[in-house]
């Protein structure tokens, strides 16, 4: 029996290698089939229930009212920063609906969408707003009413990690803005307040939903700083007998924006559908769905219809703190104020 000649052997290997590459490519090419029939909405953490209801409503509306082919919208959820990064790394998002404008700005910086994206849709591209409130145990046993109560001895505060979670950045900035606006408030005082606040935080979850789970499902902590929609969902739907929502005297107006990912929709050929999807978010129907999930509608009539769902709040907005660009740099960039709060000497 002759030995295998090296040539046939290496040919076989070559064939194997080619097959493997072809296999990978075939896997990769699945994408195009999806693009023809679906949209991908890459979203932040607490919108799971919201888009779970909006997506089929949009498909039905587009099919029935507008006479297009049925379209499936899928939503991927996660921490806002993490989601933005996966879009940047190549996740095939047609639209992004993230927790804060800075995460979409970052995508614009890398050329995935136009720099003026926020002007392309009404209300700063924000179809629903929210705010930051406290969720406490039923009956508010620790009598937590406002920001100073969070740093009383023995209080445990649950809030996610601002480095990975968009909601956590709003939480942090709500506390910061409140501290600045106190009599005699300045940056030093605000820094001290936040340092004290984070010394009361026993767990930094990666996303807003993780923090809610720690507080709600595992009984961690006395107070959860959370998105209003997240807190109301937990208080009304998850455990009406277990939790109360407390609105602090002053808090931040949170604006989670939406945008088309220009580069991906051109590749997928989904420009029209993606635009229709974002427009649909501003429709009366979607605004009502949003309100039912405790997102504050921007549509004035829907807002009026739902006044009793949402507590009255006094808010300031992100531009009063200098806008996301400067806030990101001073607070959350490497070596920023948040890193200084958690420095080694702590």
């Amino acid at each position, binding site marked *: *029996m002759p030995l295998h000649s090296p040539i046939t052997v290496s040919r076989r290997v070559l064939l194997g290698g080619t097959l493997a590459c072809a296999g*990978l490519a075939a896997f990769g090419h699945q994408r195009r089939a*999806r693009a023809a029939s679906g949209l991908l909405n890459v979203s932040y953490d607490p919108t799971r229930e919201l888009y779970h209801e909006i997506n089929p409503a949009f498909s039905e509306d587009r099919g029935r009212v507008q006479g297009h082919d049925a379209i499936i919208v899928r939503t991927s959820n996660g921490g806002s920063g993490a989601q933005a990064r996966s879009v940047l790394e190549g996740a095939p998002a047609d639209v992004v609906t993230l927790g804060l404008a800075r995460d979409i700005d970052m995508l614009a910086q890398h050329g995935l969408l136009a720099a003026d994206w926020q002007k392309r849709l009404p209300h700063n591209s924000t179809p629903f707003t929210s705010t930051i409130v406290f969720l406490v145990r039923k009956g508010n046993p620790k009598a937590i009413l406002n920001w100073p109560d969070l740093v009383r001895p023995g209080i445990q505060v649950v809030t996610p990690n601002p480095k990975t979670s968009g909601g956590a950045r709003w939480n942090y900035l709500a506390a910061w803005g409140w501290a600045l606006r106190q009599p005699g408030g300045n940056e030093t005082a605000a820094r001290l307040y936040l340092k004290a606040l984070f010394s009361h935080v026993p767990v930094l979850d990666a996303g807003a939903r993780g923090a809610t789970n720690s507080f709600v499902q595992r009984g961690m902590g006395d107070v959860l700083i959370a998105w209003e929609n997240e807190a109301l969902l937990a208080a009304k739907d998850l455990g009406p007998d277990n939790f109360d929502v407390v609105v602090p005297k002053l808090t931040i107006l949170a604006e989670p924006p939406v945008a088309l990912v220009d580069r991906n929709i051109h590749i997928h050929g989904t420009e029209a559908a993606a635009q229709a999807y974002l427009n649909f978010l501003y429709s009366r129907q979607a605004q009502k769905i949003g309100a039912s999930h405790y997102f504050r509608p921007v549509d004035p009539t829907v807002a009026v219809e739902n006044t009793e769902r949402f507590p009255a709040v006094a808010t300031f907005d992100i531009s009063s703190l200098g806008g996301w660009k400067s806030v990101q740099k001073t607070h959350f960039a490497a070596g920023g104020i948040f890193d200084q709060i958690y420095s080694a000497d702590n």
Partner: protein
Amino acid sequence: MTAPVLNKKNLNISRWVLIITTYIIVGIMLVLPPVLVIIEALRDGPYAAFASMTDPDALAAIRLTLVMTVASVAINSTFGVLAAWLIAKYRFPMRGILLMLIELPISISPVVAGLVWLLLFGTQGWWGEALNRMNIHIAFAPAGILLATLFVTFPYVTRTLLPLMEQQGRDAEDAAMLLGASFWQILWHVTLPEARWALLSGVLLTTARAMGEFGAVSVVSGHIPGLTETMPLHIETLYNGYQSVAAFSMATLLAIMAMATVSLRSVFESRAHNVATGEHDA
């Protein structure tokens, strides 16, 4: 006469202490967690648990996990057998380094195992942008999940085969060669039959690990329900969506699949052991 009796008694006492300790360890560390998973899954009754499995996204996750498992087991087993054969039967330069490279993935964090593929195929990585332009998607697509799974399950087949193949030596192979057998004939008819239980054990280990991988896959998946979510990722999504019955039902299913795989393995292993000891006796 008294001393040994006393010892016997002591031996019995310490024996019982050990046995009770075992029950406590097994109870707290190994029984409670799965019991909790099953109780959570059945909180709304068995019907709700089964119904949650028929959700299209759940079915897609199960399908993707099965496809990924079969593909990575097939690839890693084929090449793993060849690598074990190469390292066990031949001596060549850099053999030690090759062996080290094969074993390396075991000590690598799953997060790193996912990250490395982004460094290559993410659009911020080396080739992601170029491939994207050719409409070939690897990161955030099933191909990336396959690569991450291949990486974390890389060494198991070779590792389980290697000690046995080295123990076998190559006398049988040399004899077959002198009789004129080709490479495939030797591998298929001489080496592998001897090593079949070890091979099966390695394959099953790979299977179990491939089904349950979370960290590495989560880095490259993009978490798109119905498209790039494997069962472990879908469990996380369900849990974060407050669907804990569905999450724990799927966890139960996955745990049963993985446990069945691993138990099969210990059956085969004891058989392999019996074969080995039987040979020693003969």
